[in-house]
Structure formats: structure tokens, C-alpha cells
């Protein structure tokens, strides 16, 4: 089974939010909510500052506290690409998964169920790229199978210095940021 992941080149990302707009349009994300977002971090001491722009979303972790804590099985790991999804009609809106996610990647949809990034699995299953990846004007985002050593994502991870987010939370996130 494939294990989908994403690699984002922070040296190419300009924080234009095209990925955010594409996601909202593609997935009909309600106004005032975000499945993906831009985080800008600044580290260092003036004048030697380091700025990093990250397009963030659900990390589709290998260890999934959101799936483990779900009392109904609504949060589950999809057969295709081990993508973490929520079955809306099984979700009771208890919000345990929101509390369990160290990335705060989930929210409660105005209709009552937990919602989050799906890696645009409906597009991926048709052979297309996730909407955010497809529209990126700087081509800073790559999507593919982390278990396939020949995939773009695997090649980028071994060829460039990179980091994941909050690895100390122990969830083994599957989004890598090239630095």
C-alpha cells in the first residue's frame, strides 16, 4: 500500500496563499475555516534573522492519535495512500480528535462533523495532484508515495536538508519541509 506524503520547499514558497485559496475552492471549505494555512517563522537575532514560510495542513501522521481516540471509527486511515480521513456520517462531533491533534489541523465544520485536509483524495484517486500542489505558482510542493524510493518526494527527502513539524509529539508526520 502506498503511503502518501508531501514535501514543501521553504526556499521556493513565497507565502502567496494560492494553496489556501485552491483548497477552499476545491473542497468548498466554509468561510472562516481553513484546511491549510501559511505559517511564517522568524528565528535568530537582528540582523541575522532566518525566515521560513510553511504551507501547513494535516500531517497525515503514521501514528495517528486522532484515529486512535475516535469513539466511532469515523476518523480512519484510508486504503489508498494511508491518508487520514473523517467519515462525516459516522462523526458525532465529540471533538476528541481536535484535542488529540498536536498540529491543531482539525476543526468542526458548521454542519457538525470534524473536518480537515484529505490530501484531495478524490483528485488523487483519479490520478490528479491535490489542489494545493497543482496550483502552486512556485512549484514548491511535491506529493507522492513516501514508500517508493523512486518518487519525487522520496528523492527530495534524501537529497535536501529537511525537517518535519513537532516530531517530539511522536506522531511521525508525513509532511517534510526542505530548508
Amino acid at each position, binding site marked *: 500500500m502506498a503511503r502518501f506524503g508531501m514535501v514543501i520547499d521553504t526556499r521556493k514558497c513565497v507565502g502567496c496563499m494560492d494553496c489556501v485559496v485552491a483548497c477552499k475552492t476545491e473542497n468548498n471549505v466554509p468561510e472562516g475555516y481553513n484546511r491549510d*494555512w501559511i505559517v511564517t517563522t522568524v*528565528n535568530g537575532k537582528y540582523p541575522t534573522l532566518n525566515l521560513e514560510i510553511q504551507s501547513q495542513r494535516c500531517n497525515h501522521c503514521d501514528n495517528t492519535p486522532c484515529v486512535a481516540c475516535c469513539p*466511532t471509527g469515523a476518523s480512519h486511515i484510508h486504503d489508498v495512500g494511508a491518508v487520514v480521513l473523517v467519515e462525516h456520517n459516522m462523526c*458525532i462531533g465529540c471533538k476528541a480528535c481536535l484535542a488529540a491533534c498536536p498540529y491543531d489541523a482539525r476543526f468542526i465544520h458548521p454542519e457538525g462533523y470534524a473536518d480537515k485536509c484529505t490530501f484531495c483524495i478524490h483528485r488523487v484517486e483519479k490520478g490528479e495532484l491535490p489542489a494545493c500542489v497543482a496550483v502552486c505558482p512556485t512549484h514548491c510542493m511535491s506529493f507522492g508515495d513516501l514508500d517508493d524510493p523512486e518518487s519525487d518526494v522520496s528523492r527530495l527527502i534524501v537529497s535536501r536538508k529537511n525537517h518535519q513539524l513537532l516530531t517530539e509529539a511522536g506522531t511521525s508526520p508525513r509532511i517534510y519541509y526542505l530548508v
Partner: protein
Amino acid sequence: MQELTTTRHNPFIDPFTSVWGWEIPVYLFLGGLVAGLMIITGYFILKGKHKNPDSIVHYVPFLSIIFLTIGMFTLFLDLNHKLFVWRLYTTFQITSPMSWGSWILLLVYPALIANILIDPPQILINTFNVVSKWSRVINSKESFMNNIGFLNIIFGILLGVYTGVLLSTMGARPLWNSSVLWLLFLVSGLSTAAAFGHMVAKDVDEREFLAKSDNIFLISEFVVIILMLVGLMSSSQAHIQSAQLLLGGPFTAPFWVFVVGMGIIVPLFIQLLAVNHKIKHTPVAPLLVITGGLVLRFVIVYAGQFSHYINAHFQ
């Protein structure tokens, strides 16, 4: 300098997680109280106190089921997808404490109902014909009584433990991620239950016993709180910062004033004087203990959501 800006502004997520409001602490408090009452009444039944018509065994189980039902109603109020609540009972998710809890609650109700049937209130006898028949059956054999007492202790412990485990399994929230949170909630449930029993007991010996027990539970609760804070302070940066929410941070005042001061130390002092016959038993100390138990759930639930791994990067 470390600075982080985000474009995300999801409701109840940003700027910090606040997905669980008053409903969850109220449920956790009532769940803990009922768990404690089940353990105490179960113990009293095993000790044969049901033979005393003034014992709390004769009226507290009925109050317990009312408290638990109110608690479950607040839990229901918290759900955002209410019409799908039945989904809880179409599956059992072994890794989900909430799934365990929903099934444990199904076991708790029969145990409480059996406890009520030992001496059902008149309103139930008048409403349901079958109540007096079942009450006669239960009272016909001492072994039935022992089983009811035993079941109430077991399911009471399960209920009390689960309310803590529900939070402590959330690795993303460092304050909750303590291995003694279940013990804190269980002991707090026992202390609030003993305080409630102390307040409503008609029998003098039972009242004395419950006040003395409450003193032991309060001392234990204080020790567990210290152990929890020591455990967090000797863990990772995120855990240390989560403990600091209660040690100088924004939740310090409610925690130390209402939970530890007014909820443990002051009532312990009053009850120690009362059991040594220096002063009369009054509802003041039990009410303080019960309020402290409620505030404890509020502080832990709110501060726990506030605690986060991201904070550890920005100190």
C-alpha cells in the same frame, strides 16, 4: 528572537484550543461524583449497612442515577453532530477511551438500578409495578446484595478511572498527558462523594465515618496533585511549561485558591476539628470539597487545552 505568525483562524482552535466548554468539566465532575458514590455505597452494602434503614445506601443510589443522567445530558449537549450519537453504540474502538466510556456507562446504569432496587423510592414503586417485585427478589438473598455491592465498586472504579484516562491519553496536550491523572480524578471523585454522603447522611456513625474517609481522600488528593506536578516538571519542555500554567501561569489562582486552598486544605482543617468533636458537623466543609472538585475539572480541562507543544518552541 522566535516569532510565529499564522493565517489560520479556525473557530475554537485559534489562538488556542478551546473545543471543550463547560459541558465536559461538568460531566467529568458528575461522573467522578457518581463513581465515588457507587464505590462508597457498594462498600457499605458489603459491610451490611443496608440493614440500617437510615443508611445512605437507601437513598443515595437514586440521587446518583439522577446526577449521572444530568452528566450524560451535558455530554450530549457538547456534541456537534448530535443526531449521530447512536454511532457510539454501533462499534467498540479498543484504542478510544471515549468508546470504552460509552460502553462502561451502559454497564453502570444496571448496577445503579440494582442498587436502587434494594430500597426503591415510593415514586418508582407507584409508577412501575415491576419495581416492588424485583425489589423483593433482590432482598430475598444476601448473596444478591453482596453481588450488587461488588458490582457497584467495580463499575464505580471503572467510571472514575475512565474520566481521567479520557484526558491523559491525549499526547498532544502535555498537561493531561500525566500517568497519574486517572488517580487524581478517582481520588477527587471519592472525596466529593464522601463529602456529599457526609452532608446527606442521617446516621451519626455513617456521617463520622464519611467525614473521616473524606479526610483521607483529601490528603491523598493533595499528594497526587503534588506528584502530578513533580512528574510534569521533571519531563519534557512542553510538559514543564504545561505545569507552569498552574505554577505562576494564568490558571494559578483558580487552581491554588479554589482547588487546593478552599477545596482541600480548608475543608480538611474543618473536618479534622469536626471528627475530633471540637466543632459541630456542618455542610460548609462538604460544600467546599464539592466546589473544589468541580473547579478542579474546569481548571484541568481548560488549562489542558491551553497547553501545547508549539509553546515549547517559543520560550
